[in-house]
């Protein structure tokens, strides 16, 4: 439990300070604090403006990974569970959506939802097995199960092994909007991301989320108050896996390919990296983290194999210099919750 607990310390809420001087937690609008509201507006503005300055292809990929990281953060940041096999849900979502769109000829939104559903079902089974253990054992079980998914995808005929599923048609959104136009696709992905982001925010700020936070903070105490903590963790796990599946599905429809990279354990590591870099347990951290990692991969591509090394160095520096992540440290600096 130790590892998960230390990782889950919400940054920006460090101890100390005169207690009575602190204002009661302002509910704000839709559960957003004022700072979060401002950040949300900035993010929406960026979603609208960015495609006119940056490649929509790059932005779409970024948004898919941002959603993936947000789903992962729901578990580690708000429940204190370190899943080291989230690529399984992302990758299965990716494959299923790809297969549904290409072979079955389903519309993109149905394909992506199907990917999410399969991710959620997989999450239900894997979560049910893994949640009986805590801390490092939990992480190892999730990793082992994800490896099984990887080998399944390597062997199963519909995934086409090393080749993956290629040239996936983007199709017509709701049967009417042609997604082959990059900007149409972009608005669709942006809307999907925003919906997912808001859903996660709602989950955290729901009666359910309140119990989750209590479990993260002190599980035995939550049990002693009459909460069957495993059930809550499992529901959170399923939600996280489902959203990861949707992110994976959106990614394969956007990019047009679903490959073994999506289910590889390195993908599980990447999402940990994104979340840590941005800030565990912060609402916007995973988005910033995903942005940073995808930007590095895209714009440092000319350096070839050096990308991994540069990434590693940045990661080490990040952990050494600001342990709460970029957004976590920013929040601490400005004394707000982001």
């Amino acid at each position, binding site marked *: 439990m130790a590892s998960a607990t230390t990782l889950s310390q919400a940054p920006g809420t460090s101890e100390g300070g005169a207690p009575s001087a602190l204002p009661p937690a302002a509910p704000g609008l839709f559960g957003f604090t004022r700072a979060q509201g401002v950040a949300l507006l900035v993010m929406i503005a960026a979603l609208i403006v960015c495609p006119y300055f940056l490649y929509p292809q790059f932005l779409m990929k970024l948004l898919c990974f941002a959603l993936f990281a947000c789903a992962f953060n729901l578990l580690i940041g708000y429940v204190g569970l370190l899943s080291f096999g989230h690529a399984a849900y992302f990758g299965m979502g990716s494959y299923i959506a790809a297969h549904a769109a290409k072979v079955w000829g389903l519309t993109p939104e149905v394909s992506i939802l199907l990917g999410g559903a399969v991710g959620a079902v997989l999450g239900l089974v894997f979560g049910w097995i893994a949640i009986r253990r805590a801390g490092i054992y939990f992480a190892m079980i999730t990793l082992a199960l994800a490896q099984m998914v990887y080998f399944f995808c390597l062997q199963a005929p519909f995934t086409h092994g090393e080749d993956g599923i290629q040239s996936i048609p983007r199709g017509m959104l709701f049967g009417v909007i042609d997604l082959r136009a990059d900007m149409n696709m972009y608005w669709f992905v942006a809307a999907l991301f925003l919906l997912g982001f808001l859903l996660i925010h709602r989950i955290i700020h729901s009666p359910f989320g*309140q119990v989750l936070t209590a479990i993260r*903070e002190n599980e035995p105490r939550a049990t002693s108050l*009459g909460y069957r903590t495993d059930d809550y963790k499992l529901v959170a796990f399923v939600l996280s896996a489902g959203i990861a599946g949707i992110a994976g599905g959106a990614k394969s429809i956007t990019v047009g390919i679903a490959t073994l990279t999506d289910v590889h354990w390195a993908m599980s590591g990447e999402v940990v990296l994104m979340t840590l870099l941005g800030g565990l347990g912060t609402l916007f951290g995973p988005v910033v983290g995903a942005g940073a990692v995808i930007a590095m991969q895209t714009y440092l591509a000319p350096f070839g194999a050096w990308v991994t090394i540069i990434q590693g160095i940045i990661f080490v520096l990040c952990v050494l210099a600001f342990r709460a992540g970029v957004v976590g440290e920013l929040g601490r600096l400005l004394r707000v919750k982001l």
Partner: protein
Amino acid sequence: MQEYILETEGLTKEFRGFVAVSEVDLRIRRGTIHGLIGPNGAGKTTCFNLLTKFMQPSRGTIRYDGRDITAMRPAEVARLGLVRSFQISAVFPHLSVLENVRVALQRQRGGSFDFWRSDSVLRRFDDRAMELLADVGLTTYAGAPAGTLPYGRKRALEIATTLALEPTLMLLDEPTAGMTHEDVDRIVALVRRVAQGRTVLMVEHNLKVVEGLCDAITVLTRGKVLAEGPYAEVSRNPHVIAAYLGSDPGVSGAAEVAHA
């Protein structure tokens, strides 16, 4: 209505051959404050863990309110009104003081699995939460993160959180441990007040507190019940005095080794 709210029979817990709790028959009379005392390592906390189902007994049965709870899970036992506190102050540090109590009040809704609903529905518990906080003198701290409270206040918050569940039987694990004199007095007064209309079982090291609060006590040593009865009676028991002074004939050998 049973006279005894909690009864155990032959309650035993073994850890790989080490017997932490051995054949304990405990009977807690309804509506009393019952103290569980004994030297360090006597098995008091293990006993608590067994009674609240945080640990599974190796042998024996536990009956609560006329019902066999031996095979139940901890969360279920809590829902029946048998609610415990912890030795180390158990609060949710990053939740506000108000939210700490509210999480307990939220149990009234049943399972809170509605992740699609805004947590503003929980505001209807705010008034009751503030009442409970007022009860333990924490009104001014309501908005502060629980982790920033001084130690004594954390214990008070813990009691308020426990009370929010309207427990029939409250188990307090060393409620005054590590406290200053003023804090001890405040907690003693609080326990006495909240014990109205319910039963309290408390582990306590401070014998003054036990003497002032408890209607009956059970003395545990090395996992076994040494004596049971009213404080005045038990405190005169030579075996109990010996156990507390460490000159119990049964362990004198061990004591000599320890002194050497």
